[in-house]
């Protein structure tokens, strides 16, 4: 289970780092955080999971979206 999730994380990370469209990159990053939160939960770390979900998947995504609203979504 953990292995599958980790492989998905690697996929999402590559997706975020390679995509030319920043918005899809940000969504991939958000999904990355969400899956890491699931891994934390599976590793018996509920506190870290709740933090990662609230902060990593929530706030960070909002900050990123705010940023590309000011810059445009092309990675130029």
């Amino acid at each position: 289970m953990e292995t599958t999730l980790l492989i998905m994380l690697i996929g999402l990370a590559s997706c975020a780092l390679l995509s030319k469209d920043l918005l899809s990159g940000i969504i991939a990053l958000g999904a990355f955080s969400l899956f890491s939160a699931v891994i934390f939960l599976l590793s018996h770390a509920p506190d870290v999971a709740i933090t990662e979900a609230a902060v990593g998947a929530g706030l960070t995504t909002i900050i990123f979206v705010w940023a590309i609203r000011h810059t445009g979504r092309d990675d130029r």
Partner: protein
Amino acid sequence: MKRWSNPAQILVSFIFLLLFLPLFLSQEPWPTAARDILAEEAEKQTGAENIVSAMYLGYRAFDTLGETIVLLIALSGTMSVVSLLKRNSEDVRTPVSLDFSLEEEKRAHHRLRTHLLEVVTGKIGPIILLFGFYVVMHGHLSPGGGFQGGAIIASGIIFFVLGNPHRREESEIQRTTLHLIESSAFLLFLLAALVPLFMTGEVLANPFEAKEIYIIALNTFIGLKVEPGSH
């Protein structure tokens, strides 16, 4: 096509992979000394059943102080850079809801989407706020605590703001309120750190008979601190 990943660079990264391999794959058993002490003493010393909270706000509350201060100054730094941006661009007075949509999505025929957003956020917002307060107050018993709860409350507020497309940013008033909450939370946290110094001679020690009060208080202060910080 991608000039930044030529073979030489991939080789360099591969060498790093080999060099750091032993650190990641080390097979030594994980140390248990700290866990055993904590399992024995944490609840007695701090009053928190959640041992992570006991660590975070008891044994290592000093790290948490550093963390909240990072949050405080990163926020004020970000704000000061952002205020430079606003000065340069004309669309200062866009509604907050549009702040989170991209350029081409500002058009009128996306109204339906906004309407949907309005209804959903209006219903979910209060529940999120309630849940946030629950997480803050129960940090010593269950997973979560001030930081997480604060972040959840902040998301709830962002939901409210998103759901209300007609509201303009009353930036001046809002900023003052935020500053007030933020500074008072910092004051309370600092008091929580320093008052024990004069009561018991230790910084950040737990001065109460009922130990969990201190943890709940710290959780609340951090929640207060985070909540405006996340806007």
